[in-house]
């Protein structure tokens, strides 16, 4: 049994969990430590309210709101300045901290392991269990260390690191392990980059991903709203310094990757493991089904595949630094004719910060739409999608069949590659633009 320190809910499943808890006559034991966001199906078009393009979606919003209020939870509502995608908002506000256990009925909760927390995704029943009892009953996970040694080449991002890992070791490669990302190339990353890396631990079938907290972590957290203050801060940091794995610690499994070997990656298929470097091609032995769905052929080079749409956003790559790097490539350029492109900031705070530095104008000048924050077209709930059958380069984390809408072909990549591809009208290497 593990004590649970923080719980997040969202409007896609929050009402079901809270409703079922109430129906069983149970209360939320410690509502002050349960937070709820509106992110998954909220509209992202300007001037939004509770109405959403998903048929029946409004009920998810209003019922979750009512249930959250009734249970006394902290709610970041649709028009709240703190609204945003759960895994962007929680670190931003300092709700997740090193050494905490944090859960949410969302598989990308592992993102928050970037701060040295044990953070993982659960189902609704487990969320109910944690809310009612303050605990979860879990089997101790096996441990794995993924060590990225050396230095990343210029123009290569944490998105490329995680895609390279999954491409080499398979979408099942993490086998339910708690994965620690370590090595020089990891400690060199800033906090937002670390979140991108941990975000896709679930695509590796890991229970969670985490990175040892260090000075980068403490400096980033200091002063955030829910982070400890004053005397508590000093005590907390002293405690956090005891958390990292001992030098020479052993793990149930270890993987070492030379960061210098990684080039910008892009997905070609319908599983994140079906990804290759930008200089590569669709593999010779690519499965028929994935090829048919994606409309590609074996041996076809990935660079140059024509695209219909481009998406920048999500809990993987929707933070301020992601938007900055994409905007820098878009500056003074336009997206190719016929390409639908949009940028959806990961949180309302990211949106405000981006607007304060003029990133919104850079995106729009290049031909991108600029949206309110939310999960948006990272996934399809029956509402908004791309044109039927469109081929989309996307800074998101999943390329499953139908993930972004029926028949939509998703190529996952870094925000830089999405920007470069939007400009070229085809999958393109962002390093060529940067030169």
């Amino acid at each position, binding site marked *: *049994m593990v*004590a649970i*320190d923080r719980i997040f809910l969202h409007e*896609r*499943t929050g*009402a*079901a969990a809270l409703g*079922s808890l109430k129906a*069983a006559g*149970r209360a939320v*034991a*410690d*509502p*002050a*430590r349960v937070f709820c966001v509106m992110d998954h199906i909220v509209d992202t078009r300007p001037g939004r309210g509770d109405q959403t393009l998903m*048929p029946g979606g409004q*009920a*998810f919003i209003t*019922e*979750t709101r009512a249930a959250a209020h009734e249970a006394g939870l902290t709610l970041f509502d649709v028009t709240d300045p703190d609204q945003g995608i759960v895994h962007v908002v929680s670190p931003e506000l300092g709700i997740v*901290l090193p050494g*905490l256990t944090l859960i949410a*009925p969302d*598989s990308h909760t592992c993102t928050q392991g970037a701060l040295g927390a044990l953070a993982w*995704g659960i*189902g*609704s*029943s*487990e969320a*109910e*269990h944690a809310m*009612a*009892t*303050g605990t979860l*009953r*879990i*089997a101790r996970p096996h441990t794995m260390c993924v060590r990225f040694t050396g230095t990343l080449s210029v123009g290569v991002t944490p998105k490329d690191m995680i895609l390279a890992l999954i491409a080499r070791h398979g*979408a*099942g490669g993490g*086998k339910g392990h708690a994965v620690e990302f370590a090595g020089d190339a990891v400690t060199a990353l800033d906090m937002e980059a670390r979140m991108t890396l941990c975000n896709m631990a*679930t695509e590796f*079938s890991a229970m969670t991903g985490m990175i040892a907290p260090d000075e980068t972590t403490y400096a980033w957290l200091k002063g955030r709203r829910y982070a*400890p203050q004053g005397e*508590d*801060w000093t*005590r*907390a940091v002293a*405690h956090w310094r005891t958390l990292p794995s001992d030098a020479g610690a052993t793990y149930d499994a270890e993987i070492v990757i030379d960061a210098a070997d990684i080039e910008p990656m892009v997905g070609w298929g319908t*599983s994140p*493991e079906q990804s290759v470097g930008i200089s590569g091609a669709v593999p010779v032995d690519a499965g028929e089904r994935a090829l048919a769905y994606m409309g590609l052929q074996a041996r076809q080079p990935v660079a140059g595949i024509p695209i219909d749409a481009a998406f920048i956003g999500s809990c993987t790559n929707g933070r301020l630094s992601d938007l900055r790097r994409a905007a820098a490539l878009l500056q003074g350029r336009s997206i190719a004719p016929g390409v639908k492109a949009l940028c959806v900031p990961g949180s309302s705070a990211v949106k405000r910060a981006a607007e304060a530095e003029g990133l919104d104008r850079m995106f729009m000048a290049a031909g991108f739409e600029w949206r309110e924050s939310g999960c948006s077209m990272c*996934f*399809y*709930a*029956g509402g908004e999608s791309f044109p039927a059958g469109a081929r989309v380069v996307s800074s998101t984390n999943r390329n*499953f*069949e*139908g*993930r972004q809408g*029926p*028949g939509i072909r998703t190529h996952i990549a870094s925000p830089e590659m999405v920007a470069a591809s939007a400009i070229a009208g085809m999958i393109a290497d962002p390093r060529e633009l940067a030169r």
Partner: protein
Amino acid sequence: MTPFTRLTAIAAPLLRDNIDTDAIIPSREMKSTGKTGLADGLFAAWRYLKAGGRDPDPAFILNQPYYADAHILLGGSNFGCGSSREHAVWALAEYGISAVIAPSFAPIFAGNCTRNGIVPAPVPATAIAEIAADGGPVTVDLPSQTVSLADGRSWPFEIGGEAKAMLLEGLDAIDLTFKHKADIAAFQAADRMARPWVYFGDIIG
């Protein structure tokens, strides 16, 4: 939750690796905020001819008459990967699936199964190929942790002790945990002294 001990049934083979929960139940099929009314949306993108439609695709395994009564699924490795949506398991349970046999499972999906009376039974891919080739009824026996065929071929599978106990007895995990209420309160009191920043106010529950 209905207890599970032993089940003999036809097993429908869906032998693809990385079958994700978006495939098991597309997000657009999660139409209400509750846990029911999901069986129709199970495998919707594969089961029906058109997205959002309800005309069965005769090529899909569950639409074939022989598998109409399948209560077991045979899957590929990393079964249930992707979104944590428990709706995938609610949809399977409502449709009538009580066990999934696959070489490996995504961890969140396996946890969701055991909380909803579905046995996730991991057996090697070679065994799954034999079971699929046999095509006859399959027995999933939880007490002995085996999957077997009528001719006696049998394979053991692993399942955590707690998950097994919950499935066998149909126990509610929350009730089980409440038996330790005093221990939990004592832990929280001590933890609050050690890590005061973790707590924001009084715990009422």
